[in-house]
């Protein structure tokens, strides 16, 4: 038997194509669906065919969601010339997650007014870049607090949803106390929206809860808590952040800083 030496491998490399690491994985497979070890497309196809696909990262696609199952029923009764009714019930939900808690950048004592910069660091970690566009979500109320929703607020919500669909977090400004150190005279602080969960209600409407990370603290358990949520109310995106002392800051989103 011929002994395999480095020289013979070098000779072989001249004659045969060399596959890079990504191509090799395409053939070998063995991904686990994580961001750093994604499934191959072939693995994805095989898992979909067997019905075992539960979502995960796919090579070249990014995060790929499981199939959404919509279930429901309708039924009715009635008679010609009489009355009838139909009704349905069902539920579905989908969610988007962008960055994980190990990408949290909390309060930095060397940069006490740096909440916006901490959000930018988290945005970068999540693959996002600021476009420079600002969407005002609320009018300025009395004493530097957020007022009613602007006519443009729906565009702000759309920008948030689009960023999350693209797998990127998005920075928003919030009001929670009177006065403001910012030029719009209401924004007190910046947070970053990292995910959302949408569910279908029994009345056919949908509700979306947005999760956020908050650099108001350097305690990552509080900064990334699943209790940090925002939801729509009267056209305004509102929610709360529980501080380490148990007090709650009630947030109203005043501005959306869109991604490119």
């Amino acid at each position: 038997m011929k002994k395999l030496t480095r020289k013979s491998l070098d000779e072989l490399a001249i004659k045969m194509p060399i596959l890079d690491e990504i191509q090799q994985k395409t053939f070998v497979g063995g991904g686990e669906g994580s961001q750093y070890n994604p499934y191959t497309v072939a693995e994805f196809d095989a898992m979909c065919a067997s019905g075992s696909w539960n979502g995960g990262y796919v090579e070249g696609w990014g995060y790929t969601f499981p199939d959404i199952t919509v279930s429901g029923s309708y039924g009715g009764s009635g008679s010609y010339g009489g009355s009838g009714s139909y009704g349905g019930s069902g539920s579905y939900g989908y969610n988007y997650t962008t960055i994980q808690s190990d990408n949290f950048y909390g309060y930095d004592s060397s940069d006490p007014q740096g909440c916006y910069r901490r959000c930018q660091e988290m945005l970068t970690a999540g693959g996002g870049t600021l476009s420079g566009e600002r969407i005002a979500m609320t009018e300025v109320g009395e004493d530097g607090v957020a007022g009613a929703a602007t006519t443009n607020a729906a565009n702000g919500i759309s920008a948030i949803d689009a960023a999350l669909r693209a797998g990127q977090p998005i920075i928003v400004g919030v009001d929670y106390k009177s006065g403001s150190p910012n030029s719009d005279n209401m924004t007190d602080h910046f947070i970053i929206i990292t995910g959302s969960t949408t569910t279908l209600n029994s009345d056919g409407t949908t509700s979306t809860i947005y999760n956020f990370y908050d650099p108001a603290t350097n305690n990552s358990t509080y900064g990334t808590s699943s209790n940090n949520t925002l939801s729509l109310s009267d056209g305004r995106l509102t929610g709360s952040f529980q501080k380490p002392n148990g007090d709650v800051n009630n947030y109203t989103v005043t501005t959306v800083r869109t991604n490119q």
Partner: protein
Amino acid sequence: MKKIIAFLCVLNTTIALGQQIELFDSYMINFREIQADTVSRNNFISGKEISKELVRCFVPDKDDCECSKKGVWYRYASKMEKSDFIIAIISKDCDITKAGFYPYSDDILMVYSKEGKIIDYEVVSREGDAWHCYYSGTWEPLMLQVEQAFVENRNMKSQGALPCFINTYLYTMTSNGMIKKTILSEKQEGEIITTIDQDGPKRLIIKKRK
């Protein structure tokens, strides 16, 4: 003529005092009433912001070397009416500190006369990234015990449990409404740990055995 001037002065003082009491009542209505005699953490949970106008009238303006002016705001917590005084807890929140410090909330024990005059006040506890405390004692008579844990700056980067020191203080009130602070112990070693339960994150102080 002198009588008329004297009468107008008395009238003016009475009107001013009436306005002060009215303003004080509008301030006090926002505090939660302390229901039980025993002290609990819930008594220190604060809510609505105190307006700048009421802060000017009823909150002591004392400079704080750790907080930037932009970062300070005040919130209502709880109150208890005693025979001659009203005691109240307000929260002074510092969200934007000066460089080198971490955000915190100070709980201030206030003693007011029935007319809204500040008799005495004392910062009794501090909560925040680098502080946590445990409260016990009674409101009637006032015997508020605070175990105040604090983390040194060099330990703030620690992962998991934060090594801390714990000072224990007892606050009582004299018959003329002055707050008396007694140090029960100082610099006991311990840790602040953060856990998560069904209601969200929680923090605990664990004391080291001596």
